[in-house]
C-alpha cells in the first residue's frame, strides 16, 4: 500500500491505496464520486475523462499514484453554489445527452476543448477534438451543438 494525497474538486483528500489503483477507481471507489465512468478497456471511449491540473486526461489510463499532489476536477466539481457550469447547461439546453453515461466525460472534454481552442468553435473543429469520446446514443449531432453553445457561453462577458 502507498499513500496518495491530492485535491479533488477543491477538497484535500488522502488515502492508502494499492499501487495498481487507477485514478478512476480512486475516484469511484475511495471517494464515491461515481459520475466518472468506465466504458472501455483501451483508453478510447472517454467516459472517464477528468481534469488533472487543468488538463483533460483519461482517468482509466492514469494511476492514482501518479496524481499525488495534483488537483483533480471531476464532473461533480463543475457546478458551484447550485449554478451549473455553462457547458453543463449547454448540454441540457441542446439535448446533448440521452442515456447520460458518456456525458460526464463528454462535458469534461468539451471544457478542455474550449480551454485550448477558444470560444468560437466551428463544427469541424469540435468533431475532430471529440475523437477521444464515444457516444452511442446521440449521433453526436446535438453534442456538437452543445459544445459550440457551451463554448460561447463560457466566454468572458
Amino acid at each position, binding site marked *: 500500500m502507498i499513500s496518495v494525497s491530492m485535491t479533488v474538486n477543491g477538497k484535500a483528500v488522502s488515502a492508502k491505496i494499492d499501487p495498481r489503483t487507477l485514478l478512476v477507481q480512486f475516484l469511484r471507489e475511495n471517494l464515491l464520486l461515481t459520475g466518472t465512468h468506465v466504458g472501455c478497456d483501451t483508453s478510447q471511449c472517454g467516459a472517464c475523462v477528468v481534469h488533472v491540473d487543468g488538463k483533460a486526461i483519461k482517468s482509466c489510463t492514469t494511476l492514482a*499514484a501518479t496524481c499525488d499532489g495534483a488537483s483533480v476536477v471531476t464532473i461533480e466539481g463543475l457546478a458551484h453554489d447550485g449554478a451549473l457550469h455553462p457547458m453543463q447547461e449547454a448540454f441540457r439546453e441542446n439535448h446533448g445527452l440521452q442515456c447520460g453515461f458518456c456525458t460526464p466525460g463528454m462535458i469534461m472534454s468539451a471544457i478542455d476543448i474550449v480551454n485550448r481552442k477558444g470560444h468560437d468553435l466551428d463544427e469541424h473543429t469540435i468533431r475532430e477534438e471529440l475523437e477521444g469520446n464515444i457516444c452511442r446514443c446521440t449521433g453526436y449531432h446535438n453534442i456538437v451543438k452543445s459544445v459550440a453553445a457551451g463554448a460561447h457561453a463560457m466566454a468572458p462577458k
Partner: protein
Amino acid sequence: MYAFAYQRPTTVRQVQSALGKHDDAKLLAGGQTLLPTMKQRLASPSAVIDLGHVAGLSAIEKKGRNIVIGAMVRHADVATSDLVREAIPALAALAGGIGDPAVRNRGTIGGSVANNDPSADYPAALLALGATIVTNKRKIAADDFFQGMFTTALDDGEIITKVSFPVPAKAAYVKFPNPASRYAMVGVFVSKKGSDVKVAVTGASNEGVFRAAGLEAALKAKFNAKAVEGVAVDGSNFISDIHGTADYRANLVNVMTKRAVTKALGK
C-alpha cells in the same frame, strides 16, 4: 492489472538504480500504452518506476540548429510549443495528431520512442528528420535506434532523456488512421534538407518504422508529388489485417507520400 511495486525516483541516477533492483521493472512515462497493456493483464512488471517526478526530462529547447525535446515532454506540449511550431511545424502537427486530446495530455515522446509501436507516429518523425536519441549512456542515431516492431537499440537500464531534431528545410507528416483504433495504418513523414530527402513510413510494415528508399530516390530527383506517382512500394513484408491488406497499405504509402510532399511544399 497484476500487483506491482511503485517507485517514484526524482533523478535519472535513481531511476537507473531502481531498474537495477527489480528484475522486470517497467518505466512509466505517460502510461498511455503501458497501462492499457497492464490492465489487460498482458504485462506483469514487478515494479513500475514513475518518471513523472524525475528532474531534467521535461524541457523543449533550441540548441544550435537542433530542437531538443525532453523525454517526458507530453505530446500536447510539443504540439503547442512555439519553438517547435516555428522550427519544425511538421513535428508539432504530428504531435497534435497522436491519439486524442486526453491521450496527448499524458503521452510522452520518450515513452512513444522507447516503445516503438509499429503504428506509432513519432518514430516516423525521428527517422525522417535524422534525429538523435539521447540516453543516460550515449547518443543513438534514429537510423540505428529503431530495430523492428517493439524493438530498439536501448540496453537494459538505459533511459531515454531527450531527443534532438535537426531542423529541416521542408517537412510534412500525413497519416491514414486505422478507422477503429485511430493509430496510423500508414503514416509517412517526408523531410528535405539541402539535397537530402528522407521518407519514413510507420504503421505499414511488420518490421516497424522504416525508410522508403525508392520513394527517397524519386524525391531526390524531383521533390514534388508527381515524382512519386508510379513508384512501386514493396509491400511484401507489410501488415495484413482486417483493416487493410498489404497491397492496400502499399497503395496508401504511395498516396500518403504524395500528400506529404504536397503539404511540405506548402501547397
